[in-house]
């Protein structure tokens, strides 16, 4: 399986993502710079790391739309292959219209770097099948705009279609709608999440609760992604 770590200017945690693939599933992984993404379809999965793309100007993730890679990413997602966006990568997926919703500044008005208890709300996805339903994970978050917002109608759709994948189990410190920490698109082949699984693949730093996410992706090879 061949992974691309798609890098827009200002995404700074590409190395963590690359390392997580090397460390957990030991597959081919390449950095793809956003102006050189025309061969994106030669990959099996695209990973969007976190960071501060385009300085978070206008809205976090918004200016990525000015890059040709945005259209290539939309086409890749439509092809049904797997896309994972974490942190600022989740912002980009939302702003690109690949996932529904929007992001606001954290309720605390602070940049928050912490370990969160995250509940697996749906383990029947390509990204979560190696977790158990309702499993509690300890995952790091590091963001200023972690406050996910969706209107009632959108939340209803997310619920009916089991697209809410992760929620904050203890405190919903950032103020996210329905304590949402991660969602998929309708088809289930695109996951966006604010917690950072790539920072939780080694016991010596941050724990290992992120490992099963990457293993799930590996174990989903060749499947049709219909939610």
């Amino acid at each position: 399986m061949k992974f691309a770590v798609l890098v827009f200017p200002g995404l700074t945690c590409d190395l963590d993502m690359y390392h997580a693939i090397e460390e957990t599933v030991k597959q081919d992984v390449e950095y793809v710079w956003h102006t050189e993404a025309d061969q994106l379809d030669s990959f099996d999965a695209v990973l969007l790391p976190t960071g501060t793309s385009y300085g978070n100007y206008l809205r976090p993730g918004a200016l990525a739309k000015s890059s040709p890679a945005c259209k290539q990413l939309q086409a890749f997602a439509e092809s049904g292959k797997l896309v994972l966006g974490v942190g600022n990568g989740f912002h980009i997926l939302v702003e690109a219209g690949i996932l529904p919703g929007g992001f606001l500044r954290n309720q605390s008005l602070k940049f928050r770097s912490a370990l969160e208890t995250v509940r697996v709300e749906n383990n029947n996805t390509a990204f979560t099948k190696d977790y158990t339903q309702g499993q509690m994970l300890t995952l790091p978050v590091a963001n200023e705009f972690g406050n996910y917002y969706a209107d009632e109608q959108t939340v209803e759709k997310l619920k009916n279609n089991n697209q809410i994948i992760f929620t904050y189990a203890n405190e919903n410190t950032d103020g996210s709608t329905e304590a949402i920490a991660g969602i998929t698109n309708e088809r289930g082949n695109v996951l966006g999440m604010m917690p950072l699984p790539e920072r939780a693949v080694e016991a010596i730093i941050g724990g290992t609760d992120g490992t099963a996410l990457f293993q799930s992706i590996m174990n989903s090879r060749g499947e049709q992604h219909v939610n």
Partner: protein
Amino acid sequence: MTKVTIYVTLRESVVDPQGIATTEALQKMGYEDVKSVRVGKLIELELDGSEQTIETRVNEMCNDLLINKVIEDYRFEIGEVASK
């Protein structure tokens, strides 16, 4: 040349953390008559075109990039650029 001023506000249903903090700060400073503050942003564009095409263009730009309609509303004013 035309100047367009776009006013971006958070949708009414959206909680505004900055606005709440600012409300509390004002009240602490003795402005107890302040019941609510909402913080938005203002975008100024200078561009060429007739008034009708500009209206269409600005709406397109808002949809494509400047606004996220999930969280934001907008309105805009079209005026002349003051000669310098």
